[in-house]
């Protein structure tokens, strides 16, 4: 199954442009993990030409956005076909802000175990959010815990 939803691309408010965020890309995908790769590729393709560092797009963005989408689909929406995941990306030459929002009840992002501790290293899960935190410059959640905002900056 391919990603059916066409992304919407728009120019931004001049105030955001002052923060280095010059355009906006939005897409919504159904709760199907098979669409994560397509969604990440759509975003990467749109940003690659304008962002200053191509490797950041190919590695940091790809891993972080992919993990955020997986978490949203698997744990946020519990793979419920009736629920979607909204992606909003603001971007410019030196900054990218990616927001991924699911329709679940959220979770306590402050209480996620560190998968690198010896006691957790043999656990098969729990590395997605850790990788996101390692690979982007700033991570924020909304109060409910069902929306993550990941920021990448490069000079």
């Amino acid at each position, binding site marked *: 199954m391919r990603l059916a939803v066409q992304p919407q691309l728009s120019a931004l408010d001049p105030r955001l442009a002052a923060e280095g965020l010059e355009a906006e890309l939005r897409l919504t995908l159904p709760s199907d993990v098979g669409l994560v790769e397509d969604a990440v590729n759509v975003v990467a393709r749109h940003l690659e030409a304008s962002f200053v560092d191509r490797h950041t797009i190919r590695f940091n963005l790809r891993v972080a956005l992919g993990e955020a989408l997986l978490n949203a689909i698997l744990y946020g929406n519990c793979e419920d076909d009736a629920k979607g995941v909204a992606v909003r990306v603001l971007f410019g030459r030196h900054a990218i802000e990616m927001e991924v929002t699911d329709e679940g009840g959220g979770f306590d992002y402050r209480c996620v175990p560190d998968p690198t501790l010896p006691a957790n290293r043999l656990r098969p899960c729990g590395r997605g959010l850790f*990788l996101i935190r390692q690979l982007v410059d700033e991570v924020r959640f909304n109060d409910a815990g069902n929306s993550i905002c990941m920021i990448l900056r490069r000079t």
Partner: protein
Amino acid sequence: MAFNARKQPGGILVIEVDGQLIVGNRQELKQLVLDALEAGDRKFLIDFTKTGFIDSSGLGVLVSLSKKIRDEGGDLRLAGLNEDLKTLFELTKLDTLFAITDSAQQALAAF
């Protein structure tokens, strides 16, 4: 096909991951290894030379297989990780859990 398995001298099962190890195909790798374990194989080498990407669920299945193989008295080694994949293993400290070599040949020689 994402996984190519072939038996090498010394009874080592080499599994090449072609493309990606992600949530969509991790169960296929898991089943392949579990079936081989059931059939009596104990030495496993997963070769990532042709692999561009591993997500956290792919890392998770490697952890799970490592434990299973060790419990059965076997040995799992990894080889051929590109720089980005090495970074993922280092960040998650999984480089301390697995025997990782640059090439499949090095891993085969070390069994």
